[in-house]
């Protein structure tokens, strides 16, 4: 199962090819197992550019 989380994960071309080979056989199940998880902010926040820069 592939987890496309908020952050991108870099893998090498070699690793990618290896992964595809092992998934390839059951491509249909790999396809439905691709999802994206999205987490909202856990509390209200101003943008980091708001006034003041820490103390």
């Amino acid at each position: 199962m592939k987890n496309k989380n908020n952050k991108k994960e870099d893998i090498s071309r070699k690793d990618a090819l290896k992964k595809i080979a092992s998934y390839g056989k059951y491509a249909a199940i790999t396809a439905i197992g691709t999802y994206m998880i999205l987490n909202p902010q856990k509390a209200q926040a101003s943008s980091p550019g708001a006034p003041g820069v820490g103390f």
Partner: protein
Amino acid sequence: MKETTVLYKVLEDKTISWFQNKNEYAVLENTTAVILKKLNRGIPINKIAKKLSDKLDVPLEKSVDFILELERKFNKEKKSEKLEIATNYKDTKRPKDFEFVKYYKINNIVFKISFLSDKELSFVHPKFAHLIIEKVPDFKNEFEVFINNNYIFLYINNEFIGSWDNSNIHYFQGKFSMELIQKIHQKEENDWLGVFHASAISNGEKSMLFLGDSGNGKSTSLALLQANGFTCLADDFVPVDAKKQEVYSFPAAISIKKSSLETLLSIYPELENSAEYNFRRLNKIVRYLKPNNNDFFAHLPCHDLVFIKFSKNVELTCKKISKIDAFQQLIPDSWLSPKKENAQRFLDWFEGLNCYQLTYSNNEEMIETVTRIFSNDL
């Protein structure tokens, strides 16, 4: 095996699911969402797996593995930890004397806000300086802001609201803003659908949100639009209510980056002499521009989300984008109510929105395009 409440919304060719235990959204393939639904209804894994195997022509054990993995991922993982609040400091002694005591008037509501020193003042005051009034005897709300033991504290009407360390100053500012809108609009936290990191304008009848990464030109576009017949509803912190899903006014000033000054000085000569704030750590110099809104009680429906980007020397393009793409960009930057009813309302509201990507370099063309989006004439 119902372990968490899940909401589902089919959007384009995907299903968006919301998981109450973690207040988490997931964009799933429709088949996967159906499997999760079945799991939550208590249908045995073997039965679901058999159907899946037949459908996809894969061995039963592969389907079982897949479903177990789904269940582990979405139904069984523990609740994520809440943002740490330094409750240990709850009994910290409040200072008696504050160096700065300011009075701000928002419509007819007066806020007395006390800051221990210029440090605390710098976190809040610049964005609200345009609302300042002389000292008055009658005020509705009293805020106190002070730093003690490397934590910044917020008290409102003698009640401890929270404390945040140095690295969470944007959460302090977010909470401050949240408390402010609750007092202005007479709503509790549960009455809000969410708060979006966006800019909001209105044409007097409805509103529109501008989204995009920092530096894409949200605030500059807002400043240009408010000089051309539109009203600024909110910059940076855009609250939407749960009941009617309307965008509410937030009275903070618009932050203008140094790089936008050249564009805006001819329209807003007052920016020439307004105070400049240099946020070295963020490599950012900003000035604050007063919003042209004179009714901070305003709230208006919103049907359009515009991902805006200023880019030198480009031809203007404005096209509808996939709602799934828009959703993926919107969620990580937003606070969304963890309440089930509100999550359902949010999904319903989002489903009805038009999402656009607008890239421009010519200001007049951008203003004309926004006018056309408002009148459904694109």
